[in-house]
């Protein structure tokens, strides 16, 4: 708390000059505007004849200028939304995309397109409703406004994954109809005419009009709820109004520009990194910075001749990630307390009972998965299949069994990777998909498979491993000086993961006209995997098991803190290094086979803890069993629910897991301990 208070406090206000920042932002804006307008302007001046001049002036006034304005407005709105969310939650990482608001708004867009009855509401109203819904869900799950930063981030991350998996699944299932949405989902600043921009801009007016009345109460909140209340601030009302305003800003920005991430997170933090904390200064400066950032990113897209309206998100990630990483590396990112866990377990059920129950459930589920599908394979037919009397059943069994085996293996591996990473980085958010290892492995594997289409499995493992390890190396190098502080590591990973995912998406979109291929690859799955894949994965799994067993107790000691662990005789640097290596191997080899399946490694360690298992000797096996259960369920449901149409398992893990996870978080509120 004290750290955060210092960081947002109005009392500690070094009066640093903000002119350099304003000047830099204005120079960027002016330069991009000039560069972008030079072409249409010169066309207009050279135009001969009325018809040509009319067309040229249309190009200038209806296409070029609206796009510039859209970038400025959307960038500013995302930045303001981030500023308000951060002040209201007293959390420097709260931003529209991390709280799930952006993904919620995107789902709203999709619903508006897919449900004819909601057509009239399509656009900002529906985006607003969905965005607000996502934020509310995240806040309720986190346990209210005063939730610890990590808890809130985790709930927001779960919401974000839930909504984006909904979007992904719809896109994958209705591939023909929604190519346009797929393009839009990458952020499209293309503005056909000024009319659409005008409508969306109207939605910006109410939240911006409210802001001046919000800023002072929000500043008081920085002192803590009690202090704010004692000086007469209506705390719940202020927060409600702030959430409404920020959600409206996000909805309007998404309506203008599509779900562009990073800016809401980055712009306010950039301003604060310059030593400016006064909200009345931060808000306008963040808006200006956000506007300049998005304009520059969009200018880069237009300037390099990348596909129109396709890659703004990628460019934003490209521009934003290095800035963010530089801030993290220089230690300028605020580091609020990283204490606090999702929840603590209540009663502890005996380990053996739970482990046995999970194992039995897994066996039963696998058996059910062998039998259930497009065709029901009765036990008698299964026996016939194995004995070779029923060749068709044998073929079907040969399709189902390796998938289930791979789902179970990868689920367990991803879960183990999540447990180890969360412990060793001491960060509840440190799943391999959160710290970017999964995306890094996926990007390198994909690039390799595009370069060498007939790449074998050993090659894929090699590429995935090198991608995962390289990502880990970058994260560690950047955070070395900050002693791997948990929130900084999470932030670095989020930035890198976002960048890699965007690059992967671009790579697929640019090499193929079929969006479904991109989506199916991006979410990962067990479809089409064979015994050869399972056998290739098995040695990695078996080889890592003894290492996990050996690491269980050192990881317990590490949880006591570095000094305590070192005092007990633990070689902490060695253990850290080994554990990180192990976690990366587990995640990368799983990714090489099933692609970047998300959520398992983030969710299952917490599920194991919510069930009351915190010692690694118990938490690791329980989490691995739960991971296998979740992934096998996703595999079976994805294969059989809409057969013969296949739902990617990677989309289902979040769809099945996230609601359960959020429900558990709601049911088990944080203990007092978590708020420290």
């Amino acid at each position, binding site marked *: 708390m004290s750290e955060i208070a210092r960081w947002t406090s109005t009392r500690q206000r070094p009066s640093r000059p903000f002119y350099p920042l304003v000047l830099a932002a204005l120079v960027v804006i002016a330069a991009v505007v000039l560069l972008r307008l030079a072409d249409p302007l010169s066309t207009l001046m050279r135009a001969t004849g009325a018809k040509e001049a009319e067309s040229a002036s249309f190009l200038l006034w209806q296409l070029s200028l609206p796009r510039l304005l859209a970038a400025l407005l959307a960038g500013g709105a995302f930045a303001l939304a981030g500023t308000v969310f951060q002040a209201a939650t007293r959390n420097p990482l709260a931003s529209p995309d991390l709280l799930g608001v952006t993904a919620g708004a995107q789902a709203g867009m999709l619903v508006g397109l897919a449900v004819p009855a909601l057509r009239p509401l399509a656009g900002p109203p529906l985006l607003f409703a969905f965005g607000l819904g996502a934020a509310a869900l995240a806040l309720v799950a986190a346990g209210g406004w005063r939730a610890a930063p990590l808890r809130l981030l985790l709930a927001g991350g779960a919401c974000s994954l839930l909504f984006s998996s909904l979007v992904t699944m719809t896109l994958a299932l209705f591939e023909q109809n929604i190519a346009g949405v797929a*393009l839009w989902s990458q952020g499209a600043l*293309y503005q056909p005419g000024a009319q659409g921009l005008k409508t969306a801009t109207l939605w910006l007016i109410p939240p911006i009009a409210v802001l001046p009345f919000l800023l002072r109460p929000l500043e008081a909140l920085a002192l803590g709820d009690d202090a704010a209340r004692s000086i007469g601030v209506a705390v719940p009302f202020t927060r409600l109004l702030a959430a409404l305003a920020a959600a409206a800003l996000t909805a309007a920005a998404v309506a203008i520009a599509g779900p562009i991430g990073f800016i809401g997170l980055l712009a306010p933090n950039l301003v604060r990194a310059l030593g400016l904390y006064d909200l009345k200064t931060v808000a306008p400066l963040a808006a200006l910075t956000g506007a300049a950032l998005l304009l520059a990113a969009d200018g880069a897209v237009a300037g*390099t*001749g990348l596909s129109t309206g396709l890659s703004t998100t990628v460019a934003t990630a490209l521009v934003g990630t290095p800035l963010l990483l530089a801030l993290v590396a220089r230690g300028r990112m605020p580091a609020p307390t990283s204490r606090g866990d999702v929840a603590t377990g209540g009663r502890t059920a005996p380990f053996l009972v739970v482990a046995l129950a999970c194992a039995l459930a897994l066996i039963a589920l696998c058996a059910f998965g062998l039998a259930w599908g497009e065709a029901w394979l009765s036990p008698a037919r299964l026996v016939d299949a194995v004995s070779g009397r029923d060749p068709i059943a044998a*073929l079907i069994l040969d399709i*189902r069994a390796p998938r289930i085996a791979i789902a179970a293996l990868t689920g367990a591996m991803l879960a183990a990777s999540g447990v180890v990473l969360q412990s060793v980085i001491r960060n509840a958010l440190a799943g391999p998909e959160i710290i970017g290892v999964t995306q890094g492995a996926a990007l390198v594997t994909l690039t390799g498979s595009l370069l060498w289409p007939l790449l074998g499995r050993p090659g894929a493992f090699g590429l995935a491993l090198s991608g995962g390890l390289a990502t880990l190396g970058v994260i560690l190098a950047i955070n070395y000086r900050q002693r791997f502080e948990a929130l900084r590591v999470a932030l670095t990973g989020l930035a890198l993961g976002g960048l890699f995912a965007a690059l992967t998406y671009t790579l697929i979109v640019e090499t*193929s006209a079929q969006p479904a291929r991109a989506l*199916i690859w991006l979410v990962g799955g067990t479809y089409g995997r064979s015994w050869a894949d399972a056998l290739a994965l098995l040695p990695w799994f078996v080889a890592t098991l003894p290492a996990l067993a050996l690491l269980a107790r050192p990881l317990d000691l590490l949880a006591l803190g570095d000094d305590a662990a070192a005092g007990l005789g633990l070689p902490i640097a060695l253990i850290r290094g080994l554990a990180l290596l192990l976690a990366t191997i587990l995640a990368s080899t799983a990714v090489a086979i099933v692609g970047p399946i998300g959520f398992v490694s983030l969710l299952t360690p917490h599920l194991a803890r919510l069930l009351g298992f915190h010692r690694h000797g118990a938490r690791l096996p329980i989490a691995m069993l739960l991971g296998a259960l979740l992934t096998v369920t996703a595999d079976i449901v994805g294969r059989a629910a809409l*057969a013969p149409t296949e739902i990617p398992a990677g989309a289902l893990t979040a769809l099945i897991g996230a609601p359960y996870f959020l429900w558990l978080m709601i049911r088990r509120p944080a203990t007092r301990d978590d708020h420290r």
Partner: protein
Amino acid sequence: MMPSRRDILTLIASLSVSPAMAEDTLALRQSRTLPRVATRVVALEFLIAETLAMLDRPPIGMSDPKYYPGWIGLELDRLAGVTDVGTRQQPSLEAIARLKPDLIIGLAYRHAPLFDVLESLAPTVLLEFGVGQTGTQLDAVLELIGMIGAYVGRDPEAAKIRAEVERSIAEDAARLAQAGRSGRRLVVLQELGGLDTYWVFTANSMSAGLAQRLGLDFWPKDRGRDGVRVLTSQELLALDDVDIALVSYSGPQVDLAAKTKSAAWAHVPALAQGRVTLIERNIWNFGGPASARHLATRLTDMVLAAP
């Protein structure tokens, strides 16, 4: 200078095609032993099902049959009652297995990672639909007739169908020449559902191949991946003295006026000249020989009807 995106893609493309795979073969991968005459074929792509139907050897199973009528809609009689084997991207292996096929035909760019699994179910051929540095997708489609014909033991019929399709296209070309409309510039756009967001078919597409045979001048001249690329609004505004075929994304209830309501379209010269024609929802550009024949006729009618 920064390498442009196209340079990079060309580099990736050039690296990805190993010299061992010559461009004249249309099969990227195929099982070592194929049936002499396949009778139970599973088609994992519309154009393969369409070709098989034309050869009067309809597949026993195909991908996305429920979308086929809406997007191709040709040779429907012969494809009635074909078993659904899931989506084109992720066909249901179980559904395929239960059909006990003797041949599975797919496309390399979609199904290459599945080759081993498909082959474990039945002999498999994956066709490479990428068309080298000069050809068009029309050339590939015409070649495919003979190739698929050989798989199902219909070589003479295949030759006949190919000749018939080429004759039909030649007739269309003659109609254009007779009306003095040869050499007109043609642009084919596919709607994507977004505002002013279109694919434009490029010089390697089926439309480009048809334009060549019809004696029309095709724009643009560049070659996109899969025969398409995204059209910029600036390019849209510059579409003067062209006949534009706008392939619809929605059903017949939405007309051209509704499609071109945006501010940008008001400034497209071709629209003012009445030379933009809405063509009902289809993906004939990605279809087979019947699609090619049908598309040629539609484009010819359009150019003839234009002012």
